[in-house]
């Protein structure tokens, strides 16, 4: 029904309709006013409590009650009788579960309350003791026992026969050194046995008092924790207690030591050598006390230079289970390393020490000085260190790659170096355990670098050739737009990774797999060759083979170096969702040489980083064909003939030709169910017949499969070559001539192409596409386009 019809129908009742609509939208009315009513007398209220709500059978409870608006109260349930309107009463002993009720009456009626007391059966116990427990040379000892909730007792071991439920008995005299056990076994009403045992130790001869040994005299540093040890003290049996007292030197406070007999204290801060003396006495298990022994502790002044050490720790926010996003409740401080650490004088802000450390940092600094620790988000390994080298920093850049600020740093609070010691530098995430942003996201740059440490560990341990990586800038900030994450080579002279930082949309600082994926692109670009044309993609899109191999390699490389096959990418409100897949699982959608999931699955299954490293550093860099899965896997097969059958099996599982694979994919038969996909390369000869290829948007536009088509050309001798690409009127056919992936020749025009190049002998690839399909000309509608290509001599 349209609005006009609705209006006509309700025209006669418009006011009523509006009122109804207002009500529906939240408007409302109120009841007509009335005269003030006479309030009724208030009803009584009753409260009732018990000092305990669970007792043992035979025990009593203390009940306390009070009331309001009542004139009388009555007990009922487990108790009876008239009660005051408030009071306390002991009730019991109780033998069964009891419900106590108090009902009070007043002008407003009655009110009541009740409380339930649980009554448990009694717990049977037996206690047997001997006094003295240690006897000497014909002494006797007195046994004393008591029981609760048992019905009979029987003696055993060194005594025997029935015994009353409680009593005393003298045993001995004991004339031989031995241990004498006494056992009392009692039975409760249900037949359960409850026992206790006591062992009298009989000794002969006189007791030898213990000998105290307070340890050797020694020196300790100012402010150090000092342990006073009884370790050297001796007794013919057992030392059960000790007493430490200070007898000389500036008073210190003695506290507990690492054992019950030890003591400890914190040494005072002194300016000259200072003697502290402590006396020790020890007592044995028969109460004999030793003569005192003393120990001299000489406390030394703090030296002018002391060592501080610790870890750089950032607060890492881990992922929950796949799909659930980041788990702020599980965040914790974890160690990181290899970042620049500096010590600042807190007064002057001058750097007084700095360094990078593979683990804990150690600095020699002035003692008793106010300092601050600062760390910088840079990983650097440069000469004179041997190769490999790298220089990776995290900072905020603008869209042109121009820094908007310095490399991120974090400076810790002021502390005194004192006598030296441990001092960790902790970098907070800025997020609360409930996922609320409560401070600067200081840990993010360090989390990003920490994600790269497994990759750099691989680079460091990689087999030859060891790379000299170009400088890499990582652009991250909370204002980096969500999902705007990519690698770009040679932007402003630098390689560049941009990572999203937009809260509630997409943040990447705690997504190590995303960070390592982008770094995988950097590795491929730096040590090998990456012919990818970029663009939007998903792992199961059918895309240009150059994109498929680049993306698949980047994901697999990150997974292989970190031994982590689960790829997680948090997103959404509160980062409470995540994209996910397992690199090693067999995703069967769109399998083939044109799908990045297929590439990463094969690489992950091979688990052969060394050969992969050799392949990308050598054969792949030198390939005449564009970098594709065919180039990658053909080179791998050549490097590892012993693994050929494994590779063939994996490739065939992904719908990629195995045994006959070669860099140009000439034997490939997977056509993605389309007539517009194969051959991978169409042969074309210099001076031969024109060749027709079809560019299509069948799989999407831009970088999708078959928007670009490839032709293979061999030039046997240096030749001036004329290239022509033509299509129907209104289309925009483009052609790039590629020599080992590098375009040569003119920039394509918005119409048919016709240009000449002087080419050296060798193999060339012609990259032919319609600009409407390749998303480079908005004026041309995507669709299937036949492009005729000819290559002739001038």
């Amino acid at each position, binding site marked *: 029904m349209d609005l006009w019809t609705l209006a006509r129908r309700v025209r006669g009742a418009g006011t009523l309709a509006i009122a109804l609509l207002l009500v529906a939208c939240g408007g409302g009315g109120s009841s007509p006013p009335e005269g003030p009513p006479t309030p009724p007398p208030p009803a009584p209220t009753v409260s009732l409590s018990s000092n305990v709500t669970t007792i043992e059978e035979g025990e009593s409870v203390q009940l306390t009650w009070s009331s309001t608006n009542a004139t009388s109260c009555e007990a009922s349930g487990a108790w009876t009788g008239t009660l005051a309107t408030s009071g306390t009463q002991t009730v019991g002993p109780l033998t069964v579960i009891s419900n106590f009720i108090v009902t009070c009456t007043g002008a407003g009626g009655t009110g009541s309350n009740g409380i339930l007391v649980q009554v448990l059966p009694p717990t049977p116990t037996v206690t047997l003791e001997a006094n003295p427990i240690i006897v000497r040379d014909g002494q006797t000892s007195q046994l004393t026992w008591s029981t609760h909730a048992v019905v009979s007792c029987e003696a055993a071991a060194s005594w025997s026969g029935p015994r009353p439920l409680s009593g005393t008995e003298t045993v001995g005299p004991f004339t031989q050194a031995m241990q004498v056990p006494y056992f009392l076994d009692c039975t409760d009403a249900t037949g359960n046995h409850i026992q206790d045992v006591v062992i009298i130790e009989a000794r002969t001869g006189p007791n030898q008092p213990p000998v105290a040994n307070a340890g050797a005299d020694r020196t300790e540093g100012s402010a150090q924790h000092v342990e006073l040890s009884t370790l050297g003290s001796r007794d013919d049996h057992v030392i059960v207690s000790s007493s430490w007292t200070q007898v000389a030197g500036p008073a210190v406070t003695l506290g507990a030591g690492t054992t019950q007999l030890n003591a400890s204290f914190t040494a005072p801060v002194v300016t000259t050598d200072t003697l502290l003396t402590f006396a020790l006495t020890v007592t044995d298990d028969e109460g004999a006390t030793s003569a005192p022994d003393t120990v001299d502790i000489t406390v030394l002044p703090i030296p002018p230079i002391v060592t501080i050490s610790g870890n750089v720790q950032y607060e890492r926010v881990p992922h929950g289970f796949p799909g659930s996003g980041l788990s702020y409740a599980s965040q914790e401080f974890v160690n990181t390393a290899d970042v620049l650490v500096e010590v600042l004088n807190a007064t002057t802000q001058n750097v007084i020490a700095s360094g990078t450390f593979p683990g804990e940092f150690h600095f020699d600094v002035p003692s008793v000085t106010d300092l601050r620790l600062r760390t910088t988000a840079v990983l650097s390994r440069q000469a004179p260190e041997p190769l490999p080298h790298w220089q990776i920093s995290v900072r905020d850049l603008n869209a042109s790659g121009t820094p908007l600020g310095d490399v991120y740093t974090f400076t810790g609070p002021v502390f005194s170096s004192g006598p030296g010691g441990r001092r960790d530098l902790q970098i907070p995430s800025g997020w609360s355990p409930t996922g609320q942003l409560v401070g600067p996201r200081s840990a993010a740059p360090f989390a990003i670098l920490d994600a790269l440490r497994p990759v750099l560990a691989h680079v460091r341990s990689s087999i030859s050739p060891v790379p000299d990586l170009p400088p890499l800038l990582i652009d991250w900030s909370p204002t980096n737009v*969500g*999902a705007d994450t990519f690698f770009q080579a040679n932007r402003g002279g630098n390689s560049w990774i941009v990572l999203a930082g937009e809260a509630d949309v997409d943040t990447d600082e705690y997504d190590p797999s995303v960070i390592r994926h982008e770094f995988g692109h950097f590795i491929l670009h730096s040590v090998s060759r990456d012919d990818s044309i970029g663009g939007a993609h998903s792992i199961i899109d059918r895309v240009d083979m150059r994109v498929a191999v680049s993306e698949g390699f980047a994901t697999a490389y990150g997974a292989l170096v970190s031994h982590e096959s689960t790829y997680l990418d948090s997103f959404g409100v509160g980062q409470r969702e995540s994209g996910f897949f397992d690199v090693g699982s067999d995703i069967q959608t769109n399998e083939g040489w044109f799908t990045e999931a297929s590439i990463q699955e094969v690489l992950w299954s091979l688990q052969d980083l060394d050969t992969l490293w050799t392949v990308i550093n050598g054969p792949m860099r030198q390939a005449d064909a564009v970098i594709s899965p065919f180039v990658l896997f053909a080179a791998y097969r050549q490097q590892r003939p012993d693994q050929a059958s494994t590779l063939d099996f994996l490739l065939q599982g992904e719908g990629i030709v195995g045994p006959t694979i070669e860099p140009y994919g000439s034997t490939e038969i997977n056509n993605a169910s389309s007539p517009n996909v194969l051959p991978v390369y169409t042969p074309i000869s210099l001076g031969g017949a024109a060749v027709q290829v079809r560019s299509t948007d069948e799989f999407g536009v831009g970088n999708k499969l078959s928007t670009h088509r490839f032709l293979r050309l061999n030039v046997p001798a240096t030749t001036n070559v004329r290239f022509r690409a033509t299509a129907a009127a209104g289309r925009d056919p483009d052609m790039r001539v590629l020599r080992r992936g590098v375009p040569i020749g003119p920039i394509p025009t918005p119409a048919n192409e016709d240009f000449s190049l002087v080419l050296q002998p060798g193999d060339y690839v012609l990259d032919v596409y319609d600009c409407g399909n390749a998303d480079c000309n908005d004026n041309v509608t995507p669709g299937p386009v036949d492009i005729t290509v000819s290559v002739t001599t001038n």
Partner: protein
Amino acid sequence: MKRTFIANVWVYALLLMGCGAVQSQSAPPAIEQMTLAQPSAKASVPVDVRYQLRAAPTRDQPVGLELAFVARIPGHNLKVQFPRAEAVTIDSGGAPFAQQKADADGVVRRSLIVTPRAERGTVRVLVSMDIEGTRSFGVFSIPIHLER
């Protein structure tokens, strides 16, 4: 009398909009006439997001924005959210929504009313979908630029 009657129609219209009812004013545009929204740079979701504005955008004037979501690969749990837009307010239709199944070549449509607040703005669309034990997402950008 006629003036009163017309006034009532507008009252109803305003009331209906105030209650949250949003209706497309005409048939949805054909898919091929709609423009592809720009996907995000990182690995994305295999869904095409297309859009068409109902009229040329004017500063501070609401305009209809038709959206269509086309899965390139069959999936399920297609979810759509609208993150904070830049220089554009989403007046209606901006609530997140989800669809259990997303068939390849099936079209999910949504109508928004947006108001440009500056010369150049962007409506962003966050789309996620599950396929074969995986979940992927992407952020798509729709430029809302005033005509000069």
